[in-house]
Every structure is written in structure tokens, then in C-alpha cells.
């Protein structure tokens, strides 16, 4: 027997359509093309020669029936395929959903409104979270035994001690770069010795604490978000609540306190490393001996610059820890959401640290400290 074409009008009766061969997903595209005709005067369909039919083929048949305004009963089918066609016809009876009209301008406005409102909600939630954490902190201060010392020490190690090499290397290199840059300008006035003040002021007042905060934000805020987010999506937070424990006390306070303790220490290391970087450049390429560098440092850089730098560290640490934890609590179930919240926590903490630092710089300048 010659292989029959998949679609043809019956030679013996022009009102009958003959279908044959394989009608499965693999052939669906070509079968759909073969059916895409204006069929006139077709009153019945003979599909008994179809040897393979799956739901894709059946869907094409049902769509053809719809176009020809025929009933499934008007199709002659092999016995194996009747149940399938009936099921598919039953499932595709209703019309598809009509997507609502799209208006570009309306979408833009809606997007702007959504973002603005989201920003407001975010701010409100962050302020609320700060309040909640502070009140829990006060409660813990009254009952110090509820503080989770072990967890806190663990977080100090993970966020502080483990970050020391990274921060020391980074700050040493940036200290060296600042000294190099400064010396090229200062050399034109024969004033290379001012490199000492340049490196000293910049690292004690700004760079030490800022670099530390940025590294901590990148390293630790993301870690906090991912840890708490994973617990949230596995319903561990809910379990904590139902066991009568306070997730803020259990998860947020140890992280917050650990970071508030670790960041000033890291900042101090960052300052020393930066100044050491400047000192090395001065010794190697500017002919300022380490003794001369340190003597001048001692004479010209006052203690208050160190304090101005260090006092900002706990504030930045608290902001980073709170943002990291809050974003973790915002995680909602999906894998994508963990990623989104982690990105958002790093972006938010780095930008708020820089904004706070700028405000602090203005404040300290005005106070003449």
C-alpha cells in the first residue's frame, strides 16, 4: 500500500477529508501547516488511517473540527483513539483567556506608582524593624541570660576574624595607591613629606571605616540575607515562632551585636594596614624613612581623627546587619526571591553606608572635630 498523504480530500467524495499517518507532537508543526487551508464543504472526517495519535495531534483535530463547525461524532476514528479525542475535546471546550488591552503609558505610570509605594513601604518596614530590634535589645539587656553568647561568638568569628586578611590586604594596597597619587602632586611643590598627613587623615577619618563597611556589606549582609532567607523559605522561622521563641532575639540580635563588635576592630586593622601601605611607599620611593614617617605622624595627626573614624564603625555595622537580616525575612519561598533579596541587601547596605558617611563628614566638619 502506498503511504497515504497525511491530509487529502477523499477522491470518491469531495465532502470527506481523509487523514492518515502519524499525528504526534513531532509532526505537529507540519500537520498544522497541512491543515491550514480553507476547507469548503467538508462534512465528515475519516481519521481511521491515523496510526499514531497523541494529544498534540488530537488538539489539531479538535481545532479543525471547531473551524469546520463539526461535532466530534462526525469523525471516524480508530478504536484506540476515541477516548483520547473525547478527553481532548472535553478539555478544550472553553475559549482561551483574552489578554486585556495593554497601554504603554498606563504601564509606565503603574510601574512608577508601584516603585514609589514600594520604596515607602520598604522605608517604613526598615524603621519598624530597627524599632523592633532595639526593643528586643533592651529586653535582653534586662535579662542578659537570654543573649545567645555562642551564636554571637560564632558570628564574630565569621564576620570579623575571617575578614581580617581581606581587609588588611585591600587597605594596604589602597594606602599605597593614595600615597603614590598624593606624592605626584606634592612633589611639584617639594612637599612630599605631607604624604604622611594625607594618608593619616584619609585613613583615620574616612577610608579605614568606609572600606571596612563596604567589604562587610558585601561579605556579611549577603550572608545574613541568604541564611535567614533559606530558613524563611523552609518554614524554619515559623517553627521558631510556634516553639515560643523570638526570631529577632534568636537570629537578629546575635548577628547585630557580633557585627557591632567586629566592625570597629576590623576598622582599626584597616587603618593600620592603610597607613602601613602609605609608609611602605614613602620608604621605598619617596625617601622618607619609617622613623621620619612615624615621628611626623605622631606630631601632626591628632587622636580625635582616629575617634572620628572609629565612632562611625558601630553605626555602619548596625545598619548593615539590620538591612541584611530584614532582607532575609522578606524572602518569599522561591529560589529567585533569595537571589533578589541578597542583591537588594548588598545594594542597600553599601549605598546607605556611603550616604551616612557623607552626612557624618559634613557633621564633623561643621563641628570642627
Amino acid at each position, binding site marked *: 500500500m502506498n503511504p497515504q498523504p497525511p491530509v487529502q480530500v477523499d477522491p470518491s467524495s469531495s465532502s470527506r477529508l481523509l487523514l492518515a499517518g502519524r499525528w504526534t*507532537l513531532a509532526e505537529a508543526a507540519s500537520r498544522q501547516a497541512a491543515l491550514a487551508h480553507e476547507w469548503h464543504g467538508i462534512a465528515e472526517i475519516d481519521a481511521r488511517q491515523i496510526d499514531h495519535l497523541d494529544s498534540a495531534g488530537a*488538539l489539531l483535530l479538535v481545532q479543525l473540527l471547531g473551524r469546520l463547525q463539526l461535532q466530534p461524532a462526525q469523525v471516524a476514528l480508530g478504536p484506540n483513539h476515541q*477516548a483520547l479525542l473525547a478527553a481532548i475535546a472535553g478539555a*478544550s471546550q472553553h475559549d482561551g483567556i483574552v489578554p486585556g488591552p495593554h497601554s504603554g503609558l498606563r504601564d509606565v505610570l503603574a510601574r512608577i506608582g508601584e516603585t514609589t509605594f514600594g520604596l515607602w513601604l520598604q522605608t517604613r518596614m526598615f524603621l519598624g524593624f530597627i524599632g523592633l530590634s532595639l526593643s528586643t535589645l533592651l529586653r535582653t539587656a534586662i535579662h542578659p541570660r537570654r543573649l545567645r553568647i555562642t551564636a554571637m561568638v560564632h558570628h564574630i568569628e565569621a564576620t570579623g576574624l575571617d575578614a581580617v586578611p581581606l581587609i588588611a590586604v585591600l587597605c594596604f594596597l589602597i594606602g599605597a595607591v593614595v600615597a603614590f597619587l598624593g606624592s605626584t602632586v606634592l612633589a611639584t611643590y617639594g612637599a612630599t613629606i605631607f604624604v604622611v598627613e594625607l594618608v593619616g587623615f584619609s585613613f583615620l577619618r574616612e577610608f579605614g571605616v568606609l572600606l571596612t563597611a563596604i567589604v562587610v556589606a558585601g561579605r556579611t549582609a549577603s550572608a545574613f540575607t541568604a541564611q535567614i532567607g533559606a530558613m524563611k523559605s523552609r518554614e524554619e522561622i515559623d517553627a521558631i515562632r510556634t516553639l515560643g521563641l523570638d526570631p529577632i532575639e534568636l537570629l537578629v540580635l546575635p548577628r547585630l551585636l557580633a557585627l557591632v563588635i567586629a566592625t570597629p576592630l576590623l576598622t582599626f586593622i584597616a587603618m593600620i594596614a592603610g597607613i602601613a601601605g602609605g609608609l611602605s611607599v614613602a620608604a621605598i620611593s619617596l625617601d622618607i624613612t619609617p622613623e621620619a614617617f612615624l615621628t611626623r605622624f605622631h606630631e601632626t595627626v591628632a587622636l580625635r581623627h582616629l575617634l572620628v573614624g572609629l565612632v562611625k564603625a558601630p553605626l555602619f555595622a548596625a545598619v548593615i546587619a539590620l538591612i541584611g537580616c530584614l532582607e532575609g525575612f522578606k524572602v518569599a*519561598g522561591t529560589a529567585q526571591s533569595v537571589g533578589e533579596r541578597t542583591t537588594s541587601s548588598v545594594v542597600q547596605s553599601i549605598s546607605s553606608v556611603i550616604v551616612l558617611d557623607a552626612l557624618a563628614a559634613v557633621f564633623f566638619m561643621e563641628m570642627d572635630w
Partner: protein
Amino acid sequence: MSATASELDTVIRIRGLDNRFGTQVVHRDLDLDMYRGEILGVVGGSGSGKSVLMRSILGLRRPQGGSIEALGHNVLAGSEAGHRVIERRTGVLFQDGALFSSLNVAENVAVPFKEHHHDLPSALRNDLVELKVRLVGLPIDTCMKLPSQLSGGMRKRAGLARALALDPELLFLDEPTAGLDPIGAAAFDQLLRTLQQAMGLSVFLITHDLDTLYAICDRVAVLAEGKVLAIGTLEQVQDYDHPWVREYFHGPRARAAQTAKRER
């Protein structure tokens, strides 16, 4: 629906399967045959290796020994082409649906089409996606929802729609009715039976649910002591003389399920 082995061809043939985790033996010299067009219920206590068996057949886990043939292909040969065929011709519904959480339901169902039939016109693909979603009894507006916005029962139906996307010959279900309320579970059983008959599916069904066993399974395989302890129709299996089998089929819950079946 019961028929003898000689009349039907075998879709899964397992011989001498050995599975171990370290020193813990899960399967020892396990044999199993599953025939085309049947719903085979696989039961066994927790930890009896039902899921490990399914993962071995699907090639998700390499057993320590034995041979597994699915749809005429040797699963353990590791040939890329053989794997491709098995991927195309089997569908799997994992315990909680295992929907991709960042895609909505329609996108989830469209994934197998995009992977295996990327030349399909997108209009036809959308029609097919919509059809599968309807076939499993979900309202069409669930298409745009994310898995996290669905109830457990709807997630399972959506997972079933994805498993059925490519019209598999062989469907694997891992505890499809676990965690559903009894009404939802009965509806799911009914749906499975209808789809199985319409599409000529062979279904490998892991379950704890006695009602499911009594309602839709053609044959039942009992897994215990690392092998298939008994396999056959419910009537044959429930009289097998083994403490676990007796406990399972003649406990209070089994009696309730039997009564329910007689009333049906």
C-alpha cells in the same frame, strides 16, 4: 484490565538490582516487571526504597549492580541517545510537584516543549500548554500564577500537567495524593484513571494511600527486605504471608478502604 504477562509487552524490566548507601542495603537482587498500559502501585514502609527504585529507573541514581530496561532501552548503559529517548517518553511527578519556583505554571508546562520540540510554532505550543493545564483540571487563570501562589493540590496538578506535556508512554508518580485532603485525593485518583485510559499511559505509582491502591491500581508491588516481596493484583498480594503485608492490608485503615471500594 488484568491480563497475563504473555499478552502484554514489558515497559520496565529490572533484574538483580542492588542499591546500597555505604553499608546500608536498600535493594538486594530486586526483580520487577511492569507491563504496558497498567497502573502499577508500589507500596512499602518508609525507607523500603520506593523512591530509590524510581530514581534508579529514571537514571537519577546509579545502582551498584543489576540491569534496568525501560521502554526497551538499557538505562544503565549511559548512552546519551538512550537517555534522550527515556527523557522524552517518560513523565515524572515528584512529591511536591517540583515545579520551577521562578516560572509560572504555563512556563513550567512549556519547558519540555521548548527543550525537546523547539521547532514547534509558539501559537501551537501555547495551545498545547493550555490544553494540558485544562486536562489536569486546573482553571485556565492558574497559567499565570507562580507555584508559590498555588495550593498543594493545585501544585500537584500543575506538576502532572508538566509531566504529561510530551505525551509520555510511561508516567512516574511519587506519592501523588500525599498531603491532599481526601476529596482532593479522590479527585486526583479519578483524574489519573481518566488520563491513563485516554492516553494509554503506563503508570508507576508510589503511594502510601490505600484508597488510591484500591481505587485505581491494576497491580500492586510490595517492597520489603530489599526486594519485591509480592506482586500481582490486590487480591493476590493481600493474602501473601508476611507480617508487614498482613499488617498493611488487614489493618484498620485497609478495612476502611476496602469497604469504600465495595460501596463504590
